[in-house]
């Protein structure tokens, strides 16, 4: 094991980190949790769309129309929210992420091709009749199949990364051949199921929110909305229970010496998960009034479960002799501040755009909040002015200009 430890530590980037690793780790978990929620909505939404389109009766068909519009948008969000954890994982876990990807290089590229395919198919369905309730169900079916394969790929990439002790054998398995790039090498069914089943539970909660949100719209019949709420609450409950069972199976399959069931982050995540299940039992009676509470609790559960997953990764990697806490740091305060300020600015802008979307969706044509809107646009221009000024000063000082 010492040999593996010295190798993985040697693989760390020579430049060190531009800030302390805890911040990257926090951002990794936070953005991963958001990414997971959206991925859940895409996977679960595609499954429910198919069910509604094929077997759901007239209400189900109507729901499939709404979902046909939701899916491409959620997939877009899932992708953009996936970029951030992809970035941060390369900062603090570079040896593992890179090695695992190189091992399955072709698959890493196929991964993107399949997402592009699923994305295109969901648009084909939406634009060619899906929104009118008459699209060809073959498209979402193929889209779901492509998404499940991508889920399998990213699952394998994450799993290969935490087993550096197997890397050499994976490449040189049969004597002295050199097999890099063509194979996926790891799969754990309970872990995969734990993620996939969550997608139906989260989509169920999304439907509860949907039923609540469209309450004010005269073109949405109350009977339809209460049907959606009921279906949502039931789906959320059933699949949360199944997901918990898969989670237990995964927990039992972990190396015993980890004693992961005693880890505080795991206990917190699991406790929240159980509370969520309890709340979902109560929500069956009146899903709409429980929608917001349930969604907040589900968000917290996913966030802390993502932290627990992070803690599990740390246990695997410390077994291999690695911890990011001793990664050399050369703090770059200027660029850290650039990001943090931009992030805050981004929240102001996104808040405004979100408000416009929220009000427009509820049928309000004069959305108002013009002061906020003007400020959002002004902040963007201010960002440019500050950057250009800074850039010109530095460029002249360094002789990069004229």
């Amino acid at each position, binding site marked *: 094991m010492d040999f593996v430890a010295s190798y993985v530590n040697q693989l760390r*980037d020579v430049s*060190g980190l531009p800030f302390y690793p805890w911040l990257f780790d926090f951002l990794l978990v936070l953005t991963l949790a958001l990414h997971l929620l959206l991925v859940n909505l895409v996977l679960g939404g595609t499954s429910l769309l198919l069910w509604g389109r094929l077997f759901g009766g007239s209400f189900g068909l109507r729901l499939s129309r709404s979902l046909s519009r939701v899916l491409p948008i959620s997939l877009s969000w899932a992708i953009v929210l996936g970029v951030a954890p992809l970035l941060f994982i390369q900062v603090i876990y570079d040896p593992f992420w890179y090695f695992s990807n190189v091992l399955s290089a072709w698959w890493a590229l196929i991964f993107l091709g399949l997402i592009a395919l699923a994305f295109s198919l969901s648009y084909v369905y939406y634009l060619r009749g899906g929104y009118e309730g008459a699209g060809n169900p073959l498209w979402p079916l193929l889209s779901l199949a492509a998404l499940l394969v991508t889920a399998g790929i990213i699952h394998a990439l994450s799993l290969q990364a935490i087993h550096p002790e197997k890397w050499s054998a994976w490449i040189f398995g049969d004597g002295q051949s050199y097999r890099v790039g063509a194979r996926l090498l790891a799969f754990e069914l309970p872990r995969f199921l734990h993620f996939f089943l969550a997608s139906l539970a989260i989509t169920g909660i999304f439907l509860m929110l949907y039923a609540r949100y469209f309450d004010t719209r005269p073109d949405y019949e109350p009977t339809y909305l209460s049907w959606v709420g009921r279906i949502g609450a039931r789906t959320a409950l059933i699949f949360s229970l199944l997901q918990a069972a898969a989670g237990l199976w995964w927990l039992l399959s972990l190396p015993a010496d980890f004693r992961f069931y005693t880890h505080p982050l795991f206990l917190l995540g699991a406790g929240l998960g159980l509370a969520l299940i309890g709340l979902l039992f109560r929500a069956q009676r009146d899903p709409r009034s429980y929608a917001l509470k349930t969604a907040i609790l589900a968000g917290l559960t996913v966030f802390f479960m993502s932290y627990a997953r992070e803690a599990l990764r740390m246990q695997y990697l410390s077994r291999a002799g690695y911890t990011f806490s001793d990664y*050399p740091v050369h703090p770059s305060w200027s660029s850290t501040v650039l990001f943090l300020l931009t992030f805050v600015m981004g929240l102001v802008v996104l808040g405004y755009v979100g408000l416009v979307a929220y009000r427009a969706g509820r049928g309000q044509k004069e959305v108002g909040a013009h002061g906020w809107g003007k400020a959002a646009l002004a902040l963007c221009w201010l960002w440019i002015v500050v950057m250009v000024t800074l850039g010109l000063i530095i460029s002249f000082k360094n002789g990069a200009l004229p």
Partner: protein
Amino acid sequence: MYPIWIVPYLTSGLVIGLIASFHILPSHLAVGAFWFNVYIERKAYRERRPELLAFVKRYTLLILIFCFVFGSLSGVGIWFSATVASPRGLSALIHNYVWGWATEWVFFLIEVATIYVYYYTFGKVDERTHLRIGYLYAVAAWISMIIITGILAFMLTPGKWLETGKFFDGFFNPTYWPQLAARTFFMFGIAGLYALIISATLKEREVAREVARLAGGWGFAGLLLGGLSSYWWLKKLPPEAQDFLFGGTLPYLSVLLKVALLSGGLVALYFLVFGILFPRLNNLPLAFLVLLVLFLGILAGEGLREGLRRPYIVAGFMYGHQVVGADLPAKGIKSEVEALNEEGYLSRLGYLPPELRRITDENRLTVGRILVAHQCANCHALSRKGLRSLPGLLEGLGLTDPEDLASFLEGLDGYPYMPPFVGTEEERLAAGAYLATMVSKTP
């Protein structure tokens, strides 16, 4: 060192290049198009001409699908392909510019939020709000270009960063401003061409003509100013790169420059004739053909930009084969070349099984192949057919003997565009022995 992914014929380097070049089409459209879009939308509101909105809607749908499906995924594709083809190279960039990318990501979020709200609230919110969402998209998208250009330009001319290791010293480097200007103007050219494509599909002929004329003007001006900015960029290139391009050291680069110029000229001609002068002649098949010409030009231009950086990933710092070639005391970094020459390249290949960690008579060819894969395969095909084929090149030089090949490797960095072959003499001999099997197979 990470293991090496060997791509037959194409090389892994070209895989990055192809994905990155494709990405230019949707990404520059995503950045440029909305300026044109909000310009037309504003015109429609001001002059009370709702028929113009038909174009705006259709154009937005194109941006939505093409940019947010293929643009976003090919953007992530550049990362993934660099991850698998050149992990240490990408890692070096990320460990210095992670906050740059994270900042860019904030604007990606704004882009995704605004494009969907813009598209789905057409006619559902007041005009002022709708137009504002459009402007927010346009500015956010341009900012994402302002950021990524810093990282791209850094790779070619890291400037003062080579001494200080500081984020902004590398970001605002000698070729930053000309490249930003060129990309900014070219994005209007690309947006203009897409607008011509969309206008050719409009049923309302009068609107189609008007949009085509305006798009022709935007596109022509964009290409012209982009061309001038590119000239500025060429002037700012470091002397070695100038020599590769104009001194005849790497003749293929001047061919790429000519291809880029020629295709730019053809596209500009299309803007002039089929946009500005005779917009009614603009039609879908021809506009698509011109898009292909433009893509060829972009491919050549990006290939040129990449080629000028040879033999480096980050000029003056990290070689194409992912070995750090310079000290950077500010970050405590030492050049790896000397250490690897002394301790051996194999000392860094911790994934090798014990029997391959030392060279023996039995494993010499196997280890030689691994060393060649590590140091050559990113740019050279190991087969007879393919990009910069190693057997082809070595035979062209008349090298067939293992020892001759090993001494050729020793003097490799005599070519200004080649990185040094790093490793001990024993490792060079093993690599030479493997290379000899490659060339001796041929009659």
